[in-house]
């Protein structure tokens, strides 16, 4: 009997462990765009795949698994996915964290709380209309911007690999 209780305890503990992977302190919140901007201009040789999204944005949520998949695919390379959430700051605990846990998100997630988007949309990319999702590939000076929804991991590989594999 005791054995079952112990096994049961372990199972529930490990379940809790995986379910509580994300917590409020793991999502960095940027109050201003300027504070976050260095994230968009990393000074190293890593290839970054940066996505602006939100839990309330249907197409964003739909394409998110492909960002997780490519993060796995290129896990052993100089590659990193950053998910910049535009969720409401006051909904981090109620919406964002449960969402990240439910979807098992492993990529880095930050939140941009700067509500004065008219000041920073052009700084992200002058061609951006302001609709999300958007996706950026950056490695040093190499840069590509996409205001669209991706439909497979392969579509992401197609935009990342030329920059990642560039000598």
């Amino acid at each position, binding site marked *: 009997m005791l054995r079952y209780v112990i096994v049961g305890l372990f199972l529930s503990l490990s379940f809790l462990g995986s379910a509580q992977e994300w917590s409020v302190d793991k999502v960095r919140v940027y109050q201003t765009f300027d504070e976050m901007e260095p994230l968009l201009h990393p000074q190293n040789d890593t290839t970054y795949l940066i996505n602006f999204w939100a839990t309330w944005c249907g197409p964003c949520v739909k394409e998110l698994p492909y960002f997780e998949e490519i993060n796995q695919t290129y896990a052993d390379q100089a590659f990193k996915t950053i998910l910049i959430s535009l969720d*409401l700051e006051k909904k981090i605990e109620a919406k964002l964290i449960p969402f990240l846990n439910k979807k098992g998100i492993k990529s880095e997630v930050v939140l941009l709380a700067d509500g004065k988007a*008219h000041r920073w949309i052009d700084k992200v990319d002058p061609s951006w209309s302001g*609709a999300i999702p958007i996706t950026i590939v950056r490695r040093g000076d190499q840069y590509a911007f996409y205001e669209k929804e991706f439909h497979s991991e392969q579509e992401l590989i197609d935009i990342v690999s030329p920059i990642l594999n560039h000598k």
Partner: protein
Amino acid sequence: MKYIFFLVLSLMTANLVGQGYKVGDVAQDFSLLNVDGKKVSLADYKEAKGFVITFTCNHCPYAVFYEDRLIELNNKYAPLGYPVVAIMPNDPEVKPADSYNNMKLRADEKGFTFPYLYDEGQKIYPIYGATKTPHVYLLDRDRVVQYIGAIDDSPKDEAEVEETFLADAIEALIAGKKPDPATTKAIGCSIKTKS
């Protein structure tokens, strides 16, 4: 050579269609179904001095943030000749929350004081070049586009509004001036299509 010419021509026209209206362009009128079951055209507004064409929808939080502010804007500026005309551009098969029926429910619930039109077949928004909700086109009485963009500078928190872009643009037209800025950008939800 001829082919190259046609290629360039088709690229150019594709580009024009894709970009929609810029400030100074004459906007097209339309006849779209309102939530009250009647069709609405800009030509119906005999007394209007302009129009606040607002692409908006039910499901997008950024559109919802602005519902009360749109009602206030319409209540203030419709009597001055600048009515709000809201158009829902999404494909309801992609976003059932934006179905015609749900539009009626939302208009009722919020007590919209302006028409809330259904862009059936998604024919009008691409002509305007709207990319998201909310997305505003302020027209003058000749349907010349005078302002494109955001309603104000703080969607998420009305208490933080510092610049009332749209109201300022309407006031400029009333004063016989050109809106400045004539375009602004804001975060919004992409317009939902099947492709």
